């Protein structure tokens, strides 16, 4: 029988959201004997439920509650109601993710110190560094079973990778391999090896890819210390006169408002919903929203500098066969301002199926320029660009009081303008990516614009001083001792690497801290 805690139990830690941050935190706390209620807005889907079909899977898993957009990013024009491609389900976006699991480079923890002041950017150093994070990364890599770490073999390269590798080597790139992936290359952690089915973004039906949905969450539940409430949409975090949070108001699956008391609240709803919840929780004591004395809640939204390069060859590639993203070039990840920008980027293989390719290759495009590209879908190869983008105060999540969700709550508006550094880096990456494919004889290449954001970071950033950010080195809000942020919104800066390994490492570390402070009686 699944554990259940009383609504009036004020000894529980309430975790909001069960993705990379929340799902891991909930399990890690439960393993340490802490009682946890995890509120998850979505339902529960497991490998047997996932479908090898891009749009059907999107309908099953994606977060489709309304959001609005503004700013000069092309997403605001092409996908105005869908700023991000993220999941609403138990396990969060770890059901969709591709599994690329990279550590930050040492200098990336200290972006301000390394890059210096960049006009228009709100750069800051993280209050933690590589040395401090090292042991937590070790634990995160073990948990996720990351290939090319801990003796796990790399994944075999698929067709898309083989084209990419050949081009990379022809250009003289040295750091080229199938990547550090949270995908089993052999039996590990009671999960089987990757079968190269090629629907990593739709949920791995073999369970070969790590997802919190079928690892951390059931393991946490098995301890008897974790209750996951599905279809529970957190609406507001309440506090007492002393300014400590007392619990969370949420809509249950029937749309009824409930109140769960809490000793501690940990917010992990991804970088739009977490600041939205803090802002929607404004009170007479905190008129600008909870934990917002710095005014930084919702600001410094980062989405990584991204884009894709697709190429057509005179012969078949069949890029959709096999892992969606097992392939990386890391030579451009270094910080080398001689290229005309600060920070660096990674190039990673990426394949989309025909339906998504039609939607994302050139959103809004039509006519023969567009259709002749799809005509050669079978001969296409593809890669994704992911690099560090500049935090800007004006790139931000705010409440849109003109648009309400199904619960009557103001939705998040996401404003984003590219920084000149982002544009310079993207142009460099487009050139290099196209050169990789031209080196293997591409007959046509496509510098494809960014998709709705998959990496959403920074809207409750971590800072040494309360004036500069929302949370401290533990993800604890500067303003409210028993309120934590546990997802990607903590990121001070984004680094060039895909963020999830870092989110997981921070969650493991945060669980350790919270449990220790609870037993010491400090929380």
């Amino acid at each position: 029988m699944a554990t259940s805690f009383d609504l009036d139990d004020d000894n529980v830690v309430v975790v909001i959201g069960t993705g990379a941050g929340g799902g891991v935190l909930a399990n890690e706390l439960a393993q340490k004997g802490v009682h946890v209620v995890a509120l998850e807005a979505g339902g529960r889907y497991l490998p047997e439920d996932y479908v090898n079909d891009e749009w059907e899977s999107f309908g099953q898993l994606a977060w489709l509650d309304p959001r609005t957009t503004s700013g000069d990013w092309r997403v605001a024009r092409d996908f105005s109601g869908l700023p991000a491609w993220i999941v609403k389900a138990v396990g969060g976006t770890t059901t969709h993710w591709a599994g690329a699991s990279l550590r930050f480079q040492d200098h990336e923890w200290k972006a301000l110190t390394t890059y210096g002041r960049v006009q228009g950017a709100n750069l800051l150093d993280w209050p933690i560094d590589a040395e401090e994070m090292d042991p937590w990364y070790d634990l995160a890599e073990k948990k996720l079973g990351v290939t090319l770490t801990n003796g796990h073999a790399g994944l075999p390269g698929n067709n898309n990778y083989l084209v990419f590798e050949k081009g990379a080597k022809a250009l003289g790139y040295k750091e080229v391999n199938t990547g550090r992936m949270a995908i089993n290359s052999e039996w590990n952690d009671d999960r089987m090896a990757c079968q190269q089915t090629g629907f990593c973004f739709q949920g791995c039906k073999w369970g070969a890819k790590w997802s919190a949905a079928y690892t951390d969450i059931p393991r946490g539940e098995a301890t008897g210390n974790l209750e996951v409430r599905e279809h529970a949409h957190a609406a507001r975090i309440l506090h007492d006169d002393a300014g400590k949070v007392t619990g969370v108001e949420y809509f249950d699956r029937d749309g009824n408002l409930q109140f769960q008391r809490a000793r501690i609240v940990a917010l992990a709803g991804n970088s739009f919903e977490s600041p939205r919840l803090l802002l929607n929780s404004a009170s007479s004591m905190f008129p600008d929203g909870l934990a917002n004395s710095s005014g930084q809640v919702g600001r410094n939204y980062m989405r990584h500098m991204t884009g894709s390069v697709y190429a057509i060859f005179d012969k078949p590639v069949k890029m959709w066969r096999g892992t969606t993203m097992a392939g990386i070039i890391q030579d451009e990840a270094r910080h080398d301002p001689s290229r005309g920008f600060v920070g660096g980027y990674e190039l990673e293989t990426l394949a989309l199926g025909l339906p998504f390719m039609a939607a994302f290759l050139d959103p809004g495009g039509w006519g023969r320029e567009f259709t002749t590209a799809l005509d050669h879908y079978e001969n296409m190869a593809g890669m994704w660009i992911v690099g560090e983008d500049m935090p800007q105060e004006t790139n931000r999540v705010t409440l849109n009081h003109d648009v309400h969700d199904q619960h009557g709550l103001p939705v998040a508006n996401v404003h984003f303008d590219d920084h000149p550094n982002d544009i310079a880096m993207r142009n460099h990456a487009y050139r290099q990516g196209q050169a990789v494919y031209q080196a293997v004889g591409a007959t046509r290449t496509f510098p494809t614009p960014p998709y709705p954001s998959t990496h959403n970071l920074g809207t409750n950033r971590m800072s040494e001083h309360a004036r500069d950010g929302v949370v401290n080195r533990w993800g604890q809000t500067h303003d409210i001792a028993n309120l934590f942020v546990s997802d990607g919104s903590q990121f001070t800066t984004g680094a060039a690497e895909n963020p999830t390994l870092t989110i997981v490492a921070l969650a493991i570390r945060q669980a350790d801290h919270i449990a220790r402070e609870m037993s010491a009686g400090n929380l």
Partner: protein
Amino acid sequence: MTKTASPREMTRRQLLSGTVAASASFAIGAGFIAAPDAAWALEVTHLKPETMATLVRMARDIYPHDQVGDEYYVIAVRGYDSAEMAEMVEAGISALDAAAQGRGFDSYLDVGWERDRVDILRAMEESHFFQTVRGGLVTGLYNQKAVWPIFGYEGESYSEGGYMDRGFNDINWL
């Protein structure tokens, strides 16, 4: 999300031969449109048959794939034959015909060269009607499982055990 009934199956039953409109690639009868080669036919209840025929032509001009038969375009747009959509579509197609007439043709279907039709479409690219039709086609056309093999896309692979033993790394020309 999109219905994927086999077009040929669906249409054989409804097939009706009609008079071939001089400049259109469609045979049009009372309340029906059909392909001259009888590959498909569609009964329309809310739209004029000429409107549906023009819409199919427009769909192909937006996303022209010469190897993809008309029946797939018909499936992609047949949802516009509804009480809610009819007014918007009739108005949109009238505007299209008016634009064609402005360039000296009888109607959009009368425009012989794709290049001339595309010029007409470009001029109305920002319109709500054009964007609705174009946007709908992105899933309406490309999410039909039946068109995937035409592009070589293999779709679902789990039931076949993935590509582990079926060529995930079979590239032989590098």
